[in-house]
């Protein structure tokens, strides 16, 4: 049964490339609406290795990292119908699920679960149309902008997102004042934000 589901025909990839948001959104739509397992497998082929690496950067070994990557994807399966454009690109949405899973694992001995904090953040008001990031072009634009950041800003971004180090930890690690860490984060965010606004 399992073998059969894996041998099913994969949905064809559009010409825009294997990882375009349009394609990923199409796959996620198939998972949400049709509970399509081959679309789900294709999503895992793209995101599995990335989530695994993301978990390993926080100290998980290979086996645990795969386990956490599977956890993340099971959540994607469960919540696929909740994905909407105001959550950003498919990549961004799946990143937030992986991030929550990783923090919950890192904090497993503590009381509060990070997902309890972040998953209830939805505002009652609708996000204004002008605030919605254009998800379709978002990933490519941000990727290009991250590459163009000066080395010191790229470093704090990477330490925060990949290592989830607090500002204080980054400050101690680099031997620079907390204020410097914050200002590098601000500058990096403002540049990336500008490049996203240029899309609107």
């Amino acid at each position, binding site marked *: 049964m399992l073998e059969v589901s894996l041998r099913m025909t994969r949905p064809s990839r559009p010409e825009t490339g294997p990882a375009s948001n349009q394609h990923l959104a199409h796959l996620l739509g198939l998972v949400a609406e049709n509970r399509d397992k081959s679309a789900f497998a294709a999503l895992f082929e793209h995101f599995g290795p990335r989530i695994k690496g993301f978990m390993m950067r926080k100290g998980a070994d290979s086996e645990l990292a*795969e386990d956490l990557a599977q956890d993340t994807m099971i959540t994607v399966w469960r919540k696929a119908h909740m994905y909407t454009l105001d959550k950003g690109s498919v990549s961004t949405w799946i990143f937030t699920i992986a*991030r929550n899973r990783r923090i919950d694992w890192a904090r497993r001995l503590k009381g509060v679960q990070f997902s309890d904090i972040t998953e209830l953040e939805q505002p009652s008001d609708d996000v204004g149309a002008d605030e919605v990031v254009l998800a379709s072009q978002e990933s490519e634009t941000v990727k290009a902008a991250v590459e163009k950041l000066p080395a010191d800003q790229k470093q704090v971004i990477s330490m925060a997102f990949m290592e989830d180090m607090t500002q204080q930890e980054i400050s101690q690690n680099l031997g620079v004042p907390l204020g410097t860490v914050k200002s590098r984060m601000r500058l990096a965010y403002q540049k990336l934000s500008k490049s996203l606004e240029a899309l609107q």
Partner: protein
Amino acid sequence: MNIHHHLDDATIVAYAAGALPAPIAMVVSAHLSFCPHCLARVRKAEAIGSAVMEDEAPVSLSAGCMNNLFERLEAETRSEVTAPALTLSETQEESILPPQVRKALGVPLSEIKWKRIAKGVGMKMIDLGAEDEGKLYLMKIEAGRVLPEHGHGGSEVTLVLSGSYTDKFGQFGPGDIADLDDHEDHQPIVDKGADCICLVASETPAKFKDFLPRLFQPVIGI
């Protein structure tokens, strides 16, 4: 809700990275429940996270990984249930607390036993099981009360839930967040007309500037 005071860009980035101490993340999340503007900013910062993850992370999966995933999916689909919705009795008064705060607090706002820490100032600690990361608490300060001038040793964020106060940074009403830089002293005065209830998180103990209020610090604990 008319919000005038928003989160610092650096806080937005750290929150999106999941790199804030839990008490501060809770206050940020509560502000996001009120503020579509900051939520959109968080989404942008999360897009940065996904770009970094796409770029830096990939590690090949082991041969059996896909099969394992599908075995788990089989188990999942056999017992597909929807998670129970958060059931909390919603009174008019409760609605000022965002759901994640209500859940962490565990008792309705009306049943809180405020600990009197100074004249006209009540406090309620919220236990997140993360004492080493910082503190999270509610403060209720009576209308017209002047707090001692103080600075903060580490990061501190204050979200107004009801009433309002004014300090040198302006007036802070419901939904506004004070995301202060370290070492920035201020002296909040609660506006007349209504008590002010705030949700506060701090990373390290604050220090009071004047001699007399400093005596209160061990008692107040902020």
